[in-house]
């Protein structure tokens, strides 16, 4: 099954590249460096998707103590941290030419950085507890606290960076961009989401096998 998903994901990623480099036009003001957007924005989306899944799976685990829910939360958190790291890296690479510095305390980058550290702590917690059942329970609680913390991070960082008037929550959405760019972005959204599903499926299966081997 996952082999099929893997295949579809590869195809979708290829389509995303074609759209990003081939079809989408060269952006007027920034030039071609703007094409990093087709990588940066979808990975932010996947990161938030991953942490939403961690929240749901954590609550499910605490209520029903289903091992599968715990494994899903663990796998999704790991993939989430991976994409958060990717977001930060691509964001700063994109920032260098456009803003002149590798790292700026730009609202979006900062909130993603806080998420990165928070969920890295989640993975650290999992690593440090030997007893599997207790580790799962504590990770679920942390998964919930971290998820509820995300909106607080968002607001506080936005106000912190843009001084007094609280701007709209949404980042500059695709709405303001010409159609073709939006389609390219959407294709990449789909491709990255599939990649997320593929990675989580494989990672969760690996966790199950490890549990069985130890069990």
């Amino acid at each position, binding site marked *: 099954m996952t082999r099929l998903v893997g295949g579809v994901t590869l195809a979708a990623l290829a389509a995303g590249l074609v759209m990003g480099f081939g079809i989408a036009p060269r952006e007027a003001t*920034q030039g*071609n460096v703007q094409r*990093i957007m087709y990588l940066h924005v979808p990975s932010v989306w996947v990161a938030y998707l991953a942490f939403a899944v961690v929240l749901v799976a954590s609550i499910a685990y605490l209520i029903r103590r289903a091992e599968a829910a715990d494994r899903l939360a663990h796998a999704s958190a790991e993939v989430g941290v991976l994409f958060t790291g990717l977001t930060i*890296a691509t964001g700063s690479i994109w920032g260098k030419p456009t803003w002149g510095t590798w790292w700026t305390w730009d609202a979006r980058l900062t909130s993603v950085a806080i998420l990165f550290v928070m969920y890295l702590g989640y993975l650290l917690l999992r690593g440090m507890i030997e007893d599997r059942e207790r580790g799962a329970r504590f990770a679920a609680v942390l998964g919930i606290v971290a998820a509820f913390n995300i909106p607080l991070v968002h607001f506080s960082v936005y106000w912190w960076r843009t001084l007094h008037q609280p701007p709209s929550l949404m980042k500059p959405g695709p709405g303001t961009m010409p159609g073709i760019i939006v389609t390219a972005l959407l294709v990449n959204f789909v491709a990255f989401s599939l990649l997320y599903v593929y990675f989580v499926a494989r990672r969760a299966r690996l966790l199950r096998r490890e549990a069985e081997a130890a069990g």
Partner: protein
Amino acid sequence: MPDNWGFVLAAYGLAAGVLLAYWRFLARRERDLRGAAERNRIAPVSGHPGPEPASRTPRA
């Protein structure tokens, strides 16, 4: 406005590298596990009651 293709390639290259590394990490772990599982089936570890684990509350 200079195109900075270098940065674009850097970003995509890094992303590809990281994702590929993660994919290989998963594949390798799965292979190790399958190997270990085979070894277990061939010469199963003899089951014997080891020492009782320390009691649940930690000592200060």
